[in-house]
């Protein structure tokens, strides 16, 4: 009977053109439009300026180490080196600064005058890295590798305390964001809408129309009805996200920098969480109308504030506090971290605990308040 129930729900879903459109086609159209607008491969072809003002030995050493990123070590595949297409240029500070502001450069490394002298005389000194935050995929990446280079050069200077440090400054140019950034957001959006529109609303309809009541008049155990319902949504959710990722990968070669297994794990967690949230909505909404109202009330703020379309860090402080309460924020953050190594908002542990928490609390509350009959 589980199989029959599951199949029946599939048929009901697959024969519903609107549902199909919104769960599968809509996100794909979305990606395609953004992909064509923002296109681009997964290799970095960003331009970086280097201002070398230091006359001593350490400055040039640093500069060439950074420029060396484009070189692929012998015996390795140049295609695997994500930095091999980067362009470096040297120049004076004011020229390169203005290029960075215009968006002609995506990052700028400034090695200040007197760096070597200062370090040799025992005074710590730092290089400055300015990164354009609008290229969100590249910025954290580049910061990271420059940080590593600075550290290894520092260790080459035999001093007990770190002498050479790095300072990061963010700038924001007028550059558009890449599709890589958008894909985790689209995934998160689709998962949330699966919970709201494909879980809550059909369940409310099944109750108000008396379908649940009819099932209850049979020997079918209630838990089996619910489990098949969840299983069916879980399948749609996984299918939907996998299609989005696959199309993104095939058509636009979007970045998946983290492990696929971790990605699937995070997807699974957030799908289950939003199914649970959907059930909670179905539990508290008495009519289809109030169900619609509640889902929209949840959908819109989360869709626009949780980092799907623009980063949470750009929001005013008070809004950030609000956004911290949205489960979608944690979904977007965890997916961005695993897919594009975006600068984290929360640690993975926080993302895990918060989403698990929502899952558990929503499940418990749904079970507590769920009604099988309209009145």
């Amino acid at each position, binding site marked *: *009977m589980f199989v029959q129930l599951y199949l*029946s729900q599939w*048929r009901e879903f697959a024969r519903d053109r609107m549902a199909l459109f919104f769960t599968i086609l809509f996100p794909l159209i979305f990606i395609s439009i953004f992909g064509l607008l923002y296109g681009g491969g997964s290799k970095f072809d960003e331009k970086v300026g280097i201002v070398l003002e230091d006359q001593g030995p350490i400055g040039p050493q640093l500069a060439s180490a950074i420029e060396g990123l484009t070189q692929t070590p012998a015996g390795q595949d140049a295609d695997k080196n994500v930095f091999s297409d980067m362009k470096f240029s040297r120049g004076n500070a004011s020229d390169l600064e203005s290029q960075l502001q215009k968006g002609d450069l995506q990052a700028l490394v400034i090695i200040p005058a007197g760096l070597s002298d200062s370090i040799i005389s025992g005074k710590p000194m730092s290089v400055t890295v300015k990164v354009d935050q609008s290229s969100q995929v590249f910025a954290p990446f580049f910061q990271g590798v420059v940080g590593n280079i600075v550290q290894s050069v520092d260790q080459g200077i035999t001093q007990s305390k770190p002498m050479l440090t790095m300072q990061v400054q963010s700038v924001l140019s007028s550059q558009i964001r890449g599709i890589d950034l958008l894909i985790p957001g689209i995934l998160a959006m689709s998962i949330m809408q699966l919970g709201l529109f494909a879980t809550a609303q059909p369940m409310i309809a099944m109750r108000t129309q008396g379908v649940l009541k*009819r099932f209850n*008049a049979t*020997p079918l155990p209630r838990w089996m009805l619910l489990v098949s319902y969840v299983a069916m949504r879980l399948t749609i959710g996984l299918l939907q996200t996998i299609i989005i990722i696959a199309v993104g990968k095939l058509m636009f070669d979007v970045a998946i920098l983290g492990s696929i297994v971790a990605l699937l794990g995070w997807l699974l967690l957030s799908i289950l969480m939003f199914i649970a949230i959907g059930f909670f909505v179905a539990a508290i909404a008495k009519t289809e109308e109030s169900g619609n109202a509640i889902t929209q009330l949840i959908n819109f703020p989360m869709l626009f504030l949780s980092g799907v379309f623009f980063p949470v860090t750009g929001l005013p402080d008070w809004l950030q506090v609000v956004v911290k309460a949205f489960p979608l924020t944690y979904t977007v953050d965890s997916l961005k971290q695993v897919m594009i190594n975006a600068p984290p908002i929360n640690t993975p542990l926080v993302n895990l605990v918060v989403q698990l928490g929502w899952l558990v609390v929503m499940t418990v509350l749904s079970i507590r308040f769920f009604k099988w009959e309209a009145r």
Partner: protein
Amino acid sequence: MTAIQVENLVKIYGPLRAVDGISFEVAKGEVFGMLGPNGAGKSTTTEMIEGLRKPDGGNIHVLGHDVLKNVEPIKQRIGIQLQTTSLFQKLTTRELVKLFASFYKNTLPVDEVIGLVNLEEKVNTASKDLSGGQRQRLAVAIALINDPDIIFLDEPTTGLDPQARRSMWDVVSNLQKRGKTVFLTTHYMEEAERLCDRVAVVDHGKIIALGKPQALIHDNFDETALEFSNDEQLPENLLASLPGVERVQNENGITTIYSKSVARTTNALMALVEQQQTELRGFTIRAATLEDVFLKLTGRRIRD
């Protein structure tokens, strides 16, 4: 052997006693009907027997099992058609019957059940594309899939056109021939008279008459009904004083005269009409029906 035994059943909704102390028994193989107007408490009673609603008082036994203690064993042996059944919209007749078949231990073949309700031509039609009567028959097919001992039909013909209604009556008659116990509710007295071995007439949550339809009629009436619509408002006291007349009832512009002597009353009535220089429209002479019983007991018609 009793199929259903109900004692002093009570269901209270806020200030309303929707079911107010109902008791009856249904024998195996019997077609038992609950006849009453909308809101009389038919569905509430039916669904309490089916184990879908909890009573506030009373006892229910179905096939010897105490429904209030444990409905699960009974669920395998009863078939239920709810007053409004809504199913997955986009599944076909066969798919839906098959789905419900998967819930039961013992089932009839899917196609046999579809044949029992004459839906062979609609096996591949999505339930949303069925007509009202066809959807109702699909609901009955699903109620029959586990070859139940008792079939509950809650207003199976309400809202159907006369032809669809007749088709449903055939289905019920066939069930009776197969020896099934049928519990049905209706607000059509004709349906109750035609299909039911025994009828409980209910109003405001109470049984006001219980028995074989013909017996109910004879117990309440040895009169014949003369009925006409009376635009000219022939005075009731004049009509009541005509020879042979037992009672006169005026309801929604329709006058019913119950007479013990049809010939004498008719003659006198015609004379009266001529003398008043008026016309009788829709004049009929008919035997009393359950509708008349209801009218006599409550002063209202079943359908208003």
